[in-house]
């Protein structure tokens, strides 16, 4: 097993087992926006209809399972996207 695969395993474990335990409190920016009275400006301003808003897998009612599923898919997608970018940017190997 390639050693970097262990890194991927750890990332997937974090996404699947820790993300459902995440704090539901608003994050730093949201909190500041609420306190300073400009949070409303984001209401209805979404330009894009993303398939999994708020890291919830559509169709799964159980919140922890839904978050864990979205986390799993997102983590694999992040790996694929950055791996792909890396392959595009990497030096071509001259010989094996």
């Amino acid at each position, binding site marked *: 097993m390639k050693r970097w695969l262990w890194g991927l395993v750890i990332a997937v474990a974090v*996404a699947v087992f820790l993300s459902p335990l995440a704090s539901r409190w608003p994050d730093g920016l949201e909190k500041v926006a609420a306190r300073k009275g400009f949070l409303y400006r*984001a209401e209805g301003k979404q*330009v894009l209809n993303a398939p*999994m808003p708020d890291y919830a897998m559509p169709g799964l009612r159980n919140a922890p399972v839904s978050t864990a599923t979205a986390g799993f898919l997102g983590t694999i997608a*992040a790996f694929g*996207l950055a791996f792909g970018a890396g*392959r595009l940017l990497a030096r071509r190997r001259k010989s094996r």
Partner: protein
Amino acid sequence: MHIPDGFLDAKVWAAADVVAVAVVGACARKVKGNLGERQAPLLGVTAAFVFAAQMVNFPVAGGTSGHFVGGALIAILLGPAAGVIVMTCVLLLQCFIFADGGLLALGANILNMGVVGSFLGYGVFAFMPRVHLWGLRRMWAGKGSLAVAAFAAGWFSVVGAACFCALELGLSGRYPLWGAMAAMGSVHALIGVGEGIITAMVLNFLARVRPELTAGFDAGGGAE
């Protein structure tokens, strides 16, 4: 710290988008000359870890939460230009699939968390061993030096990103600039502690299991 659409006005998000495209392009060119084929999976793994860790919001004071951002960590491991590429991949995914961060504000988010996070974190990490005030020189020769430098890099990367975010909000006229700076800076000074701890823990772990990844760190103790 992902800015949704609506927070920034048109001149600010448009300017940020243009600058972000230019900087990400420059970073891609920089990485292209320096990345070995065997490092491509590392970009993938770090992106996967950053995406996963960013989902895990931890509570800080006053009913507020924060999450690990990761720019400093990746920049320390792979260099700041590769850090920007990895962060850009994560932010693209979060924006297009998970509605975390607006589409128009994507450039601003890439600048704050990706570019400022990576370059500031990298700079602080590289600079820390040169801080020799108050007898700190002895500490840099010790075992904890990697963790201390990593903690500082993480903290500054988040606070710096928050200040950039506040600058964009201020320029958009959402709130007076200095008030936004103070509010964002103070909240993220707390969140930055979490960033620093996670950055230091992950680097310490990697230094043990994959020492070659952190071998570039010169603690100034003359050991290397």
